[in-house]
């Protein structure tokens, strides 16, 4: 039986694990998390949303780094929103930082609203398409007796036109490429960061993500570091520990003293 006290975070995350929908990107996921409980409109807790969001990221085990970037950027904003006042030493955040966070929040809100608008428009289009799909057009075309009248369809078509058409049709479908263009332009790439970490970490001993990114100006840089660490973690070169959710992420080099960079399957940013 569900106790009243259980109706918080836990209930949400359990209910959450039951469903296994495929999310079309981070907005899709976030909209779902915020809006799924329409009855609870005024009882939406950012903490619960952030936890569910991160739980979902965790569930997407096979999520590749390309897809992950967008998800993580949103996660970073969410975590920042959630943890803003919890972190020690944050009592003296500057007004600028505070404003920047609100700006970030408003931007995310605006993008969510736009995304939701088109989602609903898409639903209407689908309804139209379903309705229209019940009628089938006549496409029989000309009766034989008229076919001879049709002017030459290949008039003006050259062998090069054929080549171009064939090349277009046979071109391999593009592999989904990472698209960072609509987020902060990355000043450093993941592969560069991997390379520098491979040099730094063996000398650093135990360190933390926070220490590694202490000089980071943009949130994007932190994300890039995080992705680079994940990559090294996948390669078995670092150990990552985090005692509590959102706690300090400790990084420890576990590779040899002299790791050949070329053995690392570098992430192409």
């Amino acid at each position, binding site marked *: 039986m569900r106790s009243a006290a259980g109706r918080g975070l836990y209930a949400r995350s359990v209910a959450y694990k039951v469903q296994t929908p495929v999310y079309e990107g*981070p907005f899709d996921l976030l909209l779902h998390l915020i809006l799924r409980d329409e009855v609870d409109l005024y009882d939406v807790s950012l903490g619960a949303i952030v936890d569910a969001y991160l739980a979902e990221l965790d569930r997407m085990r096979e999520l590749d780094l*390309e*897809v992950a970037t*967008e998800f993580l950027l949103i996660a970073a904003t969410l975590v920042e929103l959630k943890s803003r006042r919890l972190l020690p030493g944050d009592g003296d955040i500057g007004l600028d930082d505070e404003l920047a966070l609100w700006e970030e929040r408003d931007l995310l*809100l605006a993008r969510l609203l736009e995304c939701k608008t088109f989602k609903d428009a898409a639903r209407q289009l689908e309804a139209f398409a379903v309705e229209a799909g019940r009628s089938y057009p006549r496409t029989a075309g000309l009766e034989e007796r008229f076919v001879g009248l049709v002017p030459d369809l290949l008039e003006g078509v050259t062998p090069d036109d054929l080549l171009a058409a064939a090349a277009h049709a046979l071109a391999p479908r593009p592999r989904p490429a990472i698209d960072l263009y609509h987020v902060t332009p990355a000043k450093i790439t993941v592969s560069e960061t991997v390379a520098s970490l491979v040099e730094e970490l063996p000398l650093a001993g135990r360190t933390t993500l926070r220490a590694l990114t202490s000089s980071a100006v943009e949130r994007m840089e932190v994300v890039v570091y995080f992705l680079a660490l994940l990559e090294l973690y996948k390669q078995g070169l670092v150990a990552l520990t985090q005692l509590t959710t959102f706690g300090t992420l400790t990084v420890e080099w576990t590779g040899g003293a002299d790791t050949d960079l070329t053995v690392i399957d570098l992430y192409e940013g």
Partner: protein
Amino acid sequence: MTTLETRRAIEAILMVADHPVEPAVLAQLLEVPRADIEAACDALAAEYADHQRGFALVRVAGGYRFQSHPDLAPYIERFVLEGQTSRLSAAALETLAIVAYKQPISRMQVAAIRGVNVDGVLRTLQQRGYVMEVGRDPGPGTAVLFGTTPLFLERVGLDSLDDLPPLAQFVPGADVVEALEEGLRPEPVVEPGGGG
């Protein structure tokens, strides 16, 4: 030319056409004013409906065409078996909606709205003929700009893009905005779950 002949000629031409025929084309072929064509087509459509025909004359994607009556879809489905238009995925529909309302629009702009890479889905939509390149951004990047095709209009059964419901209709209501706003308000001091 008599009205009867106008009506009959329209019926004959639409019977051999394999795409919607614009009223202007019919007007030129029949040498009658466009308004007469439209009136004749309206009259024919009403007549078929009146006689409970198994087909209909409709206006779609800027032209007129014959099509089977929606009531009889089950028979057609049994008849055609293959070649049925496959369903559009949620991703495809969302991308189509964005392109339809925002055209001309670049790949990046679509991706920015959806928050995901849209290369694959745009290519599929192009392959299926619902979306096409309509130009280049005059800006520095000269990005390819996309728009919807007449086939898209046929697919959704609309005569023109003007028939799309206004986008404003889909802007989330105050309740949703409030929920999103609430959901993203920076957390106050106490940690959740602390109160049990």
